[in-house]
């Protein structure tokens, strides 16, 4: 084993690099990167539009419409940022990669650049503007969702291991499938009988946890007829994977029929009352 310290003075003197970067070279770099950036941004924008429409479920409620537009807008805003990072890093590999002197000797040192106030400032400003934009967009979407419409339908959602059931308190009906009318705001009052579940009507674009002893609320306004799935989004034990329910958005008339079909029999209404008392008393 050598107990010598490596000789440092050699390193400091071997390389006598160009101390100032070449201005013309710089201009060329900037031009190529800008071109690359534009191309990648265009690809990013195309991808954003295509992926958002191809992957996300079609909108069944105003809220899901909000999810889709938010994802699209955020993707569009992110595309130039991603493109910039990719453009510069790809270009750095293509243009600035240096062959080492020999296998184990590094290439000569590059011109030192310890910072650039303008670049840092522009970067900070740009990212701040983007953040403000994201925040304003998000808050306006979110506050639009908080508006309570008159004449909304209240549905009580009860999660338990490992089944959902839905109660329509006004009609004294309970069901294992969720049926909601088109065009009318629905308020879900969500609770749980045992552990935390996640009430997630997937295509309606909203979710909230079902907590034992508490009632949480979300609202959706269905805009399209059709079928949707209610999932549990919070790991809730053994059969979490099977904790799902079927949902339908139906016309107002069909909804009335649904309530009538389930009938406000004495037994059902007693059960609804019991369940309400059970949840209230817990």
């Amino acid at each position: 084993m050598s107990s010598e310290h490596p000789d440092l003075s050699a390193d400091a003197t071997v390389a006598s690099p160009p101390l100032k970067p070449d201005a013309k070279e710089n201009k060329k770099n900037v031009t190529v990167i800008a071109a690359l950036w534009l191309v990648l941004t265009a690809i990013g924008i195309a991808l954003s539009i295509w992926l958002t429409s191809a992957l996300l479920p079609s909108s069944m409620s105003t809220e899901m419409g909000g999810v889709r537009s938010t994802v699209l807008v955020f993707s569009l805003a992110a595309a130039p940022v991603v493109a910039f990072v990719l453009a510069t890093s790809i270009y750095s590999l293509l243009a600035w990669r240096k062959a080492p002197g020999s296998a184990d000797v590094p290439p000569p040192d590059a011109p030192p650049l310890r910072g650039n106030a303008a670049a840092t400032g522009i970067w900070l400003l740009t990212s701040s503007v983007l953040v403000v934009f994201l925040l304003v967009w998000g808050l306006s979407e979110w506050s639009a969702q908080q508006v309570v419409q008159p004449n909304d339908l209240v549905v009580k959602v009860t999660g338990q291991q490992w089944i959902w059931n839905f109660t329509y308190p006004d009609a004294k009906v309970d069901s294992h499938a969720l049926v909601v009318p088109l065009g009318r705001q629905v308020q879900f009052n969500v609770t749980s009988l045992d552990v935390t579940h996640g009430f997630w009507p997937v295509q309606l674009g909203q979710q909230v946890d079902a907590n034992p002893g508490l009632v949480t609320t979300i609202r959706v306004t269905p805009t399209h007829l059709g079928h949707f799935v209610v999932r549990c989004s919070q790991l809730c034990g053994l059969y979490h994977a099977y904790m799902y329910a079927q949902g339908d958005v139906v016309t107002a008339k069909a909804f009335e029929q649904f309530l009538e079909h389930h009938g406000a029999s004495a037994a059902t209404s007693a059960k609804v009352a019991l369940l309400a008392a059970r949840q209230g008393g817990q």
Partner: protein
Amino acid sequence: MRRTIGAVGFVALLSGIVALVGLGFTNQTYHSSIGTLRATTSAATTACGKPMVAQQLSFATYADSSGTNSAGQLVHPGGNPNWPSYGPSNIFSVKAHACVTMTITQFDSGGALNNPYFDSIQGTVGDVATMVSNQPSVSGCPSGQSFTYKGTYHQISPCDVGHTFTMRALPGVDPGFFLSVPLPLAGNGNNECDLDSCPKVTVTFSFISGPKGTYAWNCEFPCGLNVGNFGAVMSAYGYMSGYLHVV
């Protein structure tokens, strides 16, 4: 070259270890002692309203899963004397689009449901089942009143439940399918008695099996420990939970 062989060997060795661990975990997965319980077929029947292939399936719920049933089968291979279980298997197999008649012999005592929603029968033919017991009645709820076993039923009191047999399809199989049958309590007190002479109630119901695929069933009566009485046996796979394969 030597290093290439070394790398391949090394990766093969580690992958072998991973595969062994996988084997261990599959073994840990609960396997019923008699394997899948297959439904027997009888002549076509009209029990389901129209002539169909008829299938029968019988099993039981036991208060004590460490013993053997009257047929001499192990109730549960991982048996636990304090835990109830369905037996002799928790995995069933029936034919698709058949009229399946299930007979469940309930030996266990009972109590109250967490959710009274499960006190009524859903998804069977006519939304009813039939019960037969070797006991005329047991003391039920409200306390002091007795629960009388009576033939065909759609609903029982939510605090006279022994277990429930609640079943739905795995995601993407047969979305609308839902079946839930409350089994009334067979006796009072902690019933460790699993023989035919013990207090028991036999519940029979028919349903039309859906398309091919796997269906998951479990019990919704809180017969475990801890939060919601859904810990321990309720959260341990294979005692109060299982699958129905429709083939």
